[in-house]
């Protein structure tokens, strides 16, 4: 079902007020793959994602979706191709899961159009894909953190976009739920071909789940490419200012970063 879309950033400069957060950034998101953006706190990861989803207008440069500038596209048209799950969305008090997921249909509805069968199918498929169908009548307030995050992803799925941007979808989740969410996103990528771009905090999970890793340091692109090439001891030092040892993860064959602090290191 998924058409492939190109998403590119060219000579992008972003900032708030006097502060420049991203400088002259160029990058290309590989279509139909999972891309993870990593970097130290305040390196501009989330700012970049906000700009890619048109929440923040660039000072200079462009964000191009299929060659068109996202900041000049009609809002609803963009929202049918590119979806966004921000870091802390608000669940209105007492809202039910099905109501929340249904709101993802907004870009597909006109001002006066009624709820359609197509909307029903999209919502049902989204609940199904995220294993939240049995929660449909529950209030979002009652759910656990992991369930709630799956519901938010279901909402983003109901939007039926071919490109999905997620800002730290695993923050505040314990490790089992982090893996559950990333597995779910991988399912979507594999079954629907959805292009996924996410900001991730955890370098090792990013290296494991992403096909393409983007490492930012101080608002600039440090490295981008296959995780095996990007996640190196040099990158970790440059991006996080941390000495580390990178080994091959015996369970996945992907790179695994072991931090070297000042204590408890015997090598």
């Amino acid at each position, binding site marked *: 079902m998924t058409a492939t879309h190109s998403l590119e950033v060219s000579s992008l400069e972003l900032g708030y007020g006097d502060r420049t957060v991203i400088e002259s950034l160029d990058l290309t998101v590989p279509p139909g793959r999972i891309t993870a953006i990593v970097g130290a706190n305040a390196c501009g990861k989330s700012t970049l994602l906000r700009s890619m*989803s048109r929440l923040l207008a660039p000072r200079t440069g462009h964000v191009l979706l299929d060659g068109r500038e996202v900041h000049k596209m009609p809002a609803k048209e963009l929202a049918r191709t590119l979806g966004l799950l921000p870091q802390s969305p608000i669940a*209105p008090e007492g809202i*039910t899961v099905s109501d929340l997921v249904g*709101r993802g249909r907004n870009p597909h509805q006109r001002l006066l159009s009624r709820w359609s069968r197509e909307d029903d199918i999209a919502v049902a498929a989204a609940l199904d894909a995220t294993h939240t*169908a049995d929660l449909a009548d529950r209030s979002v307030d009652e759910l656990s953190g992991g369930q709630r995050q799956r519901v938010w992803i279901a909402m983003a799925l109901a*939007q039926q976009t071919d490109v999905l941007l997620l800002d730290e979808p695993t923050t505040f989740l314990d490790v089992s739920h982090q893996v559950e969410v990333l597995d779910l996103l991988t399912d979507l990528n594999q079954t629907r071909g959805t292009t996924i771009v996410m900001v991730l905090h955890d370098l090792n999970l990013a290296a494991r789940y992403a096909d393409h890793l983007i490492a930012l340091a101080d608002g600039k692109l440090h490295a981008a490419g296959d995780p095996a090439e990007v996640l190196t001891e040099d990158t970790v030092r440059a991006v996080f200012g941390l000495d580390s040892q990178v080994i091959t993860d015996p369970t996945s064959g992907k790179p695994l970063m072991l931090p070297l602090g000042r204590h408890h290191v015997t090598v």
Partner: protein
Amino acid sequence: MTQLDSRPVPGPALQRRPARVRTLWILAGLVALGLLMIASVAFGSRIVPWSDIVAGVQGHDDNLGQAAVVKRIPRTLLAVVVGAALGLAGAVMQGVTRNPLADPGILGVNMGASLAVVTGIVSFGLSSATAYIWVAILGAAVTAVFVYAVGSLGRGGATPLKLALAGAAISAALASLISAFVLPRSDIATGFQSWQIGGVGGASYDSLRQAGPFLVVGFVVSLLSAKSLNSLALGDDLAAGLGERVALARGVAALGAVLLCGASTAVAGPIAFVGLVVPHLCRLLIGLDHRWLLPYSALVGAALLTAADVVGRVVARPQEIDVGIITALIGAPFFIYIVRRQKVREL
């Protein structure tokens, strides 16, 4: 996990249960409003029998009872229309600001409309009802923007409590300005006092006709904002991600609410708390979807204000208590309840 799109639609039990509950509550609301409208023409300093009500509604005024009915019809209609406007405006304001304490009275919007009308009368000699309405809408709009700006100052933006405090403070300031204008003018002070408390007693078909067009536009604009408000409720970032132009959507919805507040204040005075209580009650009954919540808030607002007017006429016979006092008696404890609930948070 193959072919996600061909998965079946959830079973009927899952989808229809809330819809049936919703239909029941809507029917109950309509019936209640109908009964209250009948009560409103029947009760007052004189209780009118059914036969006279029927005759009165058909335009006869052959005896005192029928004459009372004829006089009470515009009053009833005004209570219905103003109540609907305030209930809807409250629901829209709570949606626009994501603030459970938003209400045209609490945020000072109605008081701003009042001050504008008073200033117009005292300083510029306005006398036409249409002029009052324009001025009231302008006053409501300026106050809404000002209160929101003051409430957004400082850390954390427009939190519920900051916005309510800003509204209360600005309301108090506006109220004293109004007194300063009115007190020296004994010629307008008495009539003004009742208007200032908020009442529908002075209703006429003229006031309905003049406010009508403004209210109609206000109703249409507000109701059309329902989908945007559903998206805005999820936070500005997500709303934008769902294809909403956030600032525009918020501005349009606020404009609808301001039209409703301004026009209803111009004809009935600044009635507080209807816009606060009604949306909370409606959310409990029919849920959070604004496409249902907004029209239902209008319906329940109409019923509440009509009920308040009937009660005000019955409890102190042969005197009357203005609806503004009755709604404050209902609304003030409710306001305290919401503030004291464990989590006052953004909607």
